[in-house]
C-alpha cells in the first residue's frame, strides 16, 4: 500500500508538471479545466432538457454516437505526440522490488491520474444528466457508461503496453505523419465528396452507412453495444439490454485477460516500452552529398543559394533547415498544417464546383483568400525562427558566421521554401479552378509581398521571443510538441494582428483593383508594395542581426531550458 501511495504521489506531481513551465501555467490549466467542466455541465443540462421530450430514436442515435466519439478520441490519444498517458516510467518501476498487483495498481493510477482523472468521472456523471429521462434510465445509462469506460481505459493501457515500443520510436512519428496526412485527406475529401453528391442524391450517405460491414462495426463494438443496451432500457425493454451488456462485459473480461498477459510479459522483461526502432539510415552514393530529402529539395536549395550568392555559412544553415524539415516530425507537422489546410480548401472548392452550388457564390474571391491564408499560415514558423534549433542553438551561435548572414539564411529559407511551396500551390489552385489569369498573377505578386512582410516581422519576433518547438529526449524519446506557454500564445496573437495590419493592405493594394474591373492598376501598384516590403525585410534583418548579437546568450538560455 505504501508503494502505491508513493507511486500515486509521484504520478500526481508529474501530471501537474507535465509541460508546464511555471506555476502560472499550471494555474492557467486548472482554470481551463474548470471552465470546460462548467461548460460541459451547462451543455449537458441543456441537452438533458432537450432530450427529455425527444423521441427515443433520437436518444438511441445520440448515445452510441457520443460513445463512438469518446472512443475515437481516447484511442487516438496514445498515438498523438501529447504523451498524456506516458508520464510514469514503467521500466524504472519494474526495476523496483514491487509485486505484480502493485504494478497493476501503477497502471491503473497511470491511466486515471491526470487530465483523464478530471474528464472521465465528469463525462460519466454527465451521461445520466443528458440521457436520464427518468432516474431508472439515468442509473442504467450511468452503469453502461462505467462499464464502457473501464473497457476503454484497459484498451488505452493495452495500446501503451503492446505498442509502446513502436509509439516511442521516431520512425513511428514519421509514419504517423504520412498516414495521418493521407487519412486526413481521404476523410476530408470523401466528406466533401459525400456532401457535394448528397446535394443531388440525399440518400447516398445513408446507403453507405447502412452497408453490412459498417452495420457490424456499429452494432458489435463497445460503443455500439453500449448504445444497443441503452436503447433497450430507454424503450422499457430491460431484458433486451442483457444481451448487449453481456457482450460488453465479455469484451471487457477478454481485454482484462489480454492486459494481464501483457503485464506479465512486461514484468518478466519480454516486453519493453522504450524505443529500439532505429531511424532509417541516410543513404549516400559514392562521391555524393548525403540526401537532404529529395532531388527536388536539393535542386531548390541550389537555385536559392546561387541566385542570392549566399556565403558558405548561410548555405550550410539553409541546407540544415531543409534536412530538418524532411526529418523532424514536428517541423513537418507544423509546416504541413498550413499547407494541408489550403489543399483541403482547394479540394472543397473543386468538388463544390461540380454542382455549382458553392463555387458560384465565392467565384474569384477564393483565390486571394487562399493566397492570404497560405501566407499567414506560415506565421507560427516565421515568428520563431530558432524554435526548431532548440538546444542545438549552441552550435549555431558558437560559430563565427556573422549574425546578419545567419538571419539572411533563416529568412531565405522561410521565403524560398515555405512561401515558395505556398506560391506553387496557389498557382496549381488557379489552374485547377480555372481562375482568371490576371487575377492569378496578381495573387502570386501579392503573396510574394505578404511573404516578405511575414518574414520581416518574423525576424524581429524570433530574436525577442524564441521558444523551443520540439523536444526529443534522447534515444528513447518520442518527439513532443512544445507550446511555448501563455506568453508566446499572446505574443503570437499580437504578431498576427500586427502582420495583418501591414500585410493585408499591401496585398490588397495589388489584388483589390481587379475586383473593380481594373487589373492594370494592381500591376502598377505592385512595385510600390514590393519596394515597401523589401525595405521592411532589409530593415528587419539588420535590426534582428544587431539584436541577435546583444541577445544571443539570452536566446541560448531560453532555448536550452529543460521542459521537465
Amino acid at each position, binding site marked *: 500500500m505504501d508503494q502505491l501511495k508513493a507511486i500515486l504521489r509521484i504520478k500526481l506531481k508529474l501530471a501537474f508538471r507535465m509541460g508546464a513551465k511555471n506555476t502560472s501555467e499550471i494555474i492557467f490549466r486548472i482554470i481551463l479545466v474548470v471552465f470546460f467542466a462548467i461548460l460541459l455541465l451547462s451543455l449537458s443540462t441543456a441537452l438533458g432538457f432537450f432530450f427529455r421530450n425527444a423521441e427515443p430514436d433520437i436518444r438511441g442515435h445520440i448515445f452510441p454516437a457520443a460513445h463512438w466519439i469518446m472512443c475515437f478520441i481516447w484511442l487516438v490519444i496514445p498515438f498523438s505526440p501529447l504523451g498524456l498517458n506516458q508520464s510514469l516510467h514503467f521500466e524504472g518501476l519494474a526495476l523496483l522490488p514491487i509485486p505484480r498487483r502493485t504494478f497493476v495498481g501503477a497502471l491503473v493510477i497511470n491511466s486515471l491520474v491526470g487530465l483523464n482523472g478530471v474528464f472521465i468521472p465528469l463525462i460519466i456523471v454527465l451521461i445520466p444528466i443528458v440521457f436520464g429521462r427518468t432516474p431508472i434510465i439515468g442509473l442504467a445509462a450511468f452503469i453502461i457508461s462505467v462499464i464502457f469506460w473501464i473497457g476503454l481505459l484497459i484498451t488505452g493501457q493495452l495500446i501503451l503496453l503492446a505498442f509502446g515500443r513502436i509509439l516511442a520510436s521516431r520512425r513511428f512519428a514519421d509514419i504517423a505523419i504520412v498516414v495521418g496526412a493521407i487519412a486526413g485527406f481521404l476523410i476530408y475529401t470523401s466528406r466533401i465528396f459525400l456532401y457535394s453528391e448528397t446535394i443531388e442524391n440525399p440518400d447516398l450517405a445513408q446507403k453507405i452507412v447502412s452497408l453490412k460491414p459498417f452495420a457490424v462495426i456499429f452494432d458489435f463494438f463497445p460503443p455500439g453495444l453500449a448504445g444497443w443496451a441503452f436503447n433497450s432500457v430507454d424503450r422499457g425493454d430491460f431484458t433486451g439490454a442483457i444481451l448487449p451488456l453481456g457482450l460488453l462485459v465479455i469484451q471487457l473480461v477478454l481485454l482484462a485477460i489480454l492486459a494481464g498477459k501483457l503485464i506479465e510479459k512486461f514484468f518478466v522483461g519480454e516486453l519493453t516500452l522504450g524505443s529500439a526502432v532505429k531511424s532509417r539510415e541516410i543513404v549516400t552514393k559514392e562521391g555524393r552529398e548525403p540526401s537532404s530529402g529529395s532531388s527536388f529539395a536539393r535542386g531548390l536549395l541550389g537555385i536559392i543559394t546561387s541566385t542570392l550568392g549566399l556565403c558558405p555559412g548561410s548555405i550550410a544553415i539553409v541546407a540544415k533547415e531543409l534536412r530538418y524539415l524532411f526529418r523532424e516530425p514536428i517541423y513537418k507537422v507544423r509546416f504541413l498544417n498550413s499547407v494541408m489546410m489550403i489543399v483541403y480548401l482547394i479540394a472543397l472548392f473543386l468538388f463544390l464546383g461540380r454542382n455549382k452550388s458553392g463555387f458560384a457564390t465565392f467565384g474569384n474571391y477564393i483565390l486571394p483568400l487562399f493566397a492570404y491564408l497560405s501566407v499567414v499560415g506560415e506565421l507560427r514558423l516565421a515568428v520563431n525562427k530558432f524554435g526548431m534549433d532548440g538546444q542545438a542553438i549552441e552550435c549555431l551561435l*558558437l560559430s563565427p558566421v556573422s549574425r546578419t548572414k545567419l538571419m539572411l539564411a533563416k529568412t531565405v529559407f522561410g521565403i524560398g521554401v515555405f512561401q515558395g511551396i505556398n506560391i506553387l500551390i496557389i498557382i496549381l489552385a488557379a489552374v485547377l479552378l480555372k481562375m482568371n489569369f490576371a487575377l492569378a498573377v496578381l495573387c502570386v505578386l501579392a503573396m510574394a509581398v505578404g511573404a516578405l512582410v511575414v518574414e520581416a516581422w518574423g525576424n524581429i519576433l524570433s530574436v525577442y521571443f524564441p521558444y523551443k518547438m520540439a523536444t526529443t529526449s534522447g534515444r528513447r524519446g518520442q518527439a513532443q510538441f512544445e507550446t511555448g506557454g501563455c506568453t508566446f500564445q499572446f505574443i503570437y496573437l499580437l504578431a498576427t494582428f500586427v502582420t495583418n495590419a501591414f500585410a493585408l493592405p499591401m496585398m490588397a493594394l495589388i489584388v483589390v483593383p481587379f475586383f473593380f474591373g481594373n487589373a492594370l492598376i494592381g500591376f502598377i501598384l505592385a512595385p510600390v508594395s514590393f519596394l515597401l516590403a523589401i525595405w521592411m525585410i532589409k530593415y528587419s534583418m539588420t535590426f534582428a542581426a544587431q539584436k541577435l548579437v546583444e541577445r544571443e546568450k539570452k536566446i541560448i538560455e531560453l532555448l536550452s531550458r529543460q521542459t521537465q
Partner: protein
Amino acid sequence: MNGEPVVINDHTGDALGDSYDANGQTGAYRLKKPPAVVIDGLTKRFDDFTAVDNISLAVPEGEFFGFLGPNGAGKSTTIKVLVGLITASYKNIRIAGCDLRSEPLKVKANIGVMLEEPHLYDRLTSREYLQFIGRMYGLAPGETDLRTEELLALMDLEDAANKMIIDYSTGMRKKTVLAAAMIHNPKVLFLDEPFGGIDPIASRKIKDVMNRLVRHKVTIFFSSHVMELVEKLCTSVAIIHHGQIHFHAPMSEIRASGRTLEDVFVEIAGDGHMETEELSWIN
C-alpha cells in the same frame, strides 16, 4: 585593459612568475610564451549564488591546461563564459589574442568547444553535422569533406556516419562533438569532460591527437574529474573551488614536490573533511 599587466596569484604561496602582459607581448610569465587564454576578474552570479568569484588566470599558448574542481565548483560555467555562451562580468577576457567583449566572432573563429552536455543537431548524421560545422567556419567544400572523413575515421564513426545522431550513444555523440570542435583547426580547444563515455580505443587515439595538437601550439583548456588523466596529459593545472582559483601551477612542480595531483586536489577541495561519513545502517 589591453596592455595592462595582470597579476596571477596561485593562492599557495608558490610564486608562479608573477605577471604578464595581457597581449602577450612582454612580461615575465614563467613559461615565456604569449598567453592564449587570459581571464581577468571574471565573476558569474546566478541570482544569489556566485558560481565564479572574481577569478584571474592566464594559459600560455601551446599549453595542455587542466582546469580542475569538485562538482559545482564553477568549471563548466567558466568555460561557457569563455566561449561566449553565457554572460558574466569581467574586466578582460582575451582568447587567442582576441577580446571576447569587442570581437566575439573572432574569438569563436579561433576556438573549438566541447561542452560536458553537448547539444547537437540530432536529425543530421555525424557526417552531415561535421560538414555543417566545417562550412559554418568558412572551410571550402572539398576541404570540409576531406577533414570530415579523416575525423570520422579518427573517432571510429565511419560505420555510423550515415545514421542520425539521435540514434547515437552518449560516447558516439561526444566523439561527434569532439570531431566538430577540431574540424576548423582552432587555436584554443575548450574541452569539458571530453572522455566520459568514450571507449578506450577511441580515447587513446584522441589523446594522441591532442598531444599532437599541443605540439603544434594549439592550447587545450581541459576540464576533467579524472586525476590520472589530467596528471598524464596536462602541462599545467588550476584548481577552482567555491568559484575561486585556489591553485595554479605547472605539473612539473607538483611532480617535483613528490605529491600526486590527487593529493593536491583533495587537500584544496576536500575542505579538511576527508574522513568517510558513517552510514547508520551499515555495520
